[in-house]
């Protein structure tokens, strides 16, 4: 295999510059490929709010835990949501106490479980951004078509553009450019991001997840900043069409309605979540089961909100590494393998040898 070349950023970084990768998959790829070790020191790379597990609010985990405690209920969800702590432990702890909590890798696997075990009430906890929401929508439609009365969805879905709006409007956060999430943009296309350069002067690049694609993306961001011409540019042409995936968005709109949603550490963001529309109430877990009213959040000292918005780096959180570790996480950024704290812990806790 030929040696791969490393780009030279030097000529493009003339002043201290701060870039943020929004997506957790980018965060992990950046760490895993040692990209930080290749950046000039004037260039700061922050990790943003694009890890779906990390932004799942404690109240949402508590709702999931109360569902799991009901007899006859099977809770299905993606693996990395299992360790996120709620008020009384995590879903993994609940499973240890005998609750029926199962890992699935897709929404359709959850529905299959329900169809296979008609005597169980199967709830699918559906976290994720625009990437996973269309498949949840498709499964809700399929459940409706098959009249699966023992299947329901607890939607924890969140939308990316609203949280970027909050970030962009935050005067404390001085981000010069955003590396936008590839997968989410496959669905959304480029248009929903145009307010970022137009209103806030933030350079934007949609990039893929391979090391070279990320380096290319960072270089393009620096070029936009250097020439003072911020725009939204997609370098992920193999997957992102400018208009996105219309069919997937139609599916989402058919099944879901945008609602105000709580984000871990960031509070409630207007129209940033997705709830099932009225006609799909029979498959809405919040309608089918009695859920507790959300009690006040317990103070953990966790600085998730500041981590997710790049105001603090993970090692600057007072809980990082003591007591918050991937083995006993205090906050969700340490739980998900794509969380910035977990990525820091796994790949950079002891520096770069």
């Amino acid at each position, binding site marked *: *295999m030929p*040696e*791969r070349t*490393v780009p030279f950023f030097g000529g493009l970084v003339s002043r201290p510059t701060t870039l943020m990768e929004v997506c*957790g*998959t980018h965060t*992990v790829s950046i*760490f*895993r*490929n*040692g*990209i*930080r*070790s*290749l950046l000039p020191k004037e260039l700061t790379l922050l990790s943003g709010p694009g890890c*779906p*597990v990390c932004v799942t609010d404690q109240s949402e985990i508590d709702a999931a835990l109360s569902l799991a405690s009901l007899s006859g209920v099977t809770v299905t969800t*993606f*693996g*990395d*949501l*299992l*360790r996120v702590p709620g008020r009384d432990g995590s879903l*993994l702890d609940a499973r*240890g106490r005998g609750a029926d909590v199962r*890992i*699935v*890798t897709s929404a359709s*696997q959850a529905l299959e479980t329900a169809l296979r075990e008609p005597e169980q009430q199967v709830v699918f906890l559906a*976290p*994720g*951004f625009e*990437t*996973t929401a269309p498949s949840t929508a498709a499964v809700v439609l399929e459940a409706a078509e098959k009249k699966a009365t023992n299947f329901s969805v607890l939607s924890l879905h969140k939308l990316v553009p609203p949280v970027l709006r909050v970030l962009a409007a935050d005067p404390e956060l001085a981000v010069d450019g955003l590396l936008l999430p590839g*997968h989410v943009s496959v669905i959304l296309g480029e248009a929903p991001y145009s307010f970022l350069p137009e209103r806030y002067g933030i350079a934007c690049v949609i990039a893929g997840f391979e*090391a*070279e694609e990320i*380096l290319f993306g960072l270089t393009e961001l620096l070029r936009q900043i250097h020439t003072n011409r911020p725009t939204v540019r997609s370098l992920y042409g193999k997957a992102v069409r400018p208009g996105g995936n219309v069919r997937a968005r139609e599916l989402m709109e058919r099944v879901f309605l945008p609602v105000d949603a709580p984000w871990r550490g960031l509070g409630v963001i207007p129209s940033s979540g997705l709830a099932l529309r009225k006609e799909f109430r029979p498959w809405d877990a919040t309608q089918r089961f009695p859920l507790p009213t959300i009690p006040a959040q317990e103070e953990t000292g966790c600085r998730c909100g500041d981590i997710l918005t790049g105001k603090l780096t993970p090692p600057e959180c007072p809980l990082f590494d003591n007591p918050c*570790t*991937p*083995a006993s996480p205090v906050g969700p950024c340490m739980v*998900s*393998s*794509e969380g910035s704290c977990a990525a820091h*812990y*796994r*790949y*950079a*806790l*002891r*520096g*770069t*040898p």
Partner: protein
Amino acid sequence: MSRLTLGHGSGGRLTQQLVHRIAGCFPLSGHDMEDCAIAPDGSGATMDGFTVTPRFFSGGNLGKLAVCGAANDLAVRGIRPEQLLLSVIAEEGFDEEELLEHFRSAGAVCGALEMRLVGGDTKVVPRGAVDGLFLSACALGREEPRREEQLGAARLQPGDTLLLTGPAGRHGATIAAARYELNVPGLASDCAALWPLLAPLLSLPGLRAMRDCTRGGVGTVLCEWAESRHLGISVEERTFPADPGVVSVADLLGLDPLYLACEGTAVVAVAPGDAAEALRLLRSHPLGTEAAAIGIVTENHPNLVSLTTHIGGRRLVDMPVGELLPRIC
């Protein structure tokens, strides 16, 4: 009150800490606490417990896994596996034909190794007390040839070359694919007895240490070696043999192949002068055709494992913490 989690059994940092706490309960315990014990007369013994879901997977089954796992713990210390004891704990209602199928697979491995079953124990427990079938295998053998200084991490020297006998993570990726119902054509566990592959290396004077990279994968073995000798280890990502099936499962589930279990793949440390010959010997065996030199032992960055990535970046390889869970998207 502290309770065990699946993370304590996943082979990484938590397992290491738990093993230290267990060893602390014993007034007398071995100072190196490797997977295999070697007596002064050169005889070696190891034991290992096996439980896997599913019990049948592409490339093997629980029975084959048990014999290979135990025999490999001896083989990597230069001990020819000769005798086997098997303990069976089966759940009431377990299908006898399936039980025998596991043992036929185990028997086939023993036959190829000329390893004799010499004893064991069989228990059937009430339904629900175990999940189907648990096997424990104890393997006994003799150092071949006898050596004054045992093979092991204690022999590692700065400058040693590290070889990997095949692509990392095939067993772990196969099990993960089966568990999460992913169909990956061509992906199979590397489950195999390593003695025939490794035995030819034993005559090399520069052979330092070998380890089969089971739970915790190649990354964990490298970390344990670096920490146990207070030396650094540097590896180059682009030299690693890779299996396309492992790469796709790992990408899809957000897992790192470096931490996925192997059941027939070893890391070998050898003095630089013997590295080329060791590599030639490995590659001439069907299990080692993809063997490669992946890095070196160094005095730089003691206790740490450094990885130079495909694009020339550098990063830490740290021990995994807790159970590996697949991510969302």
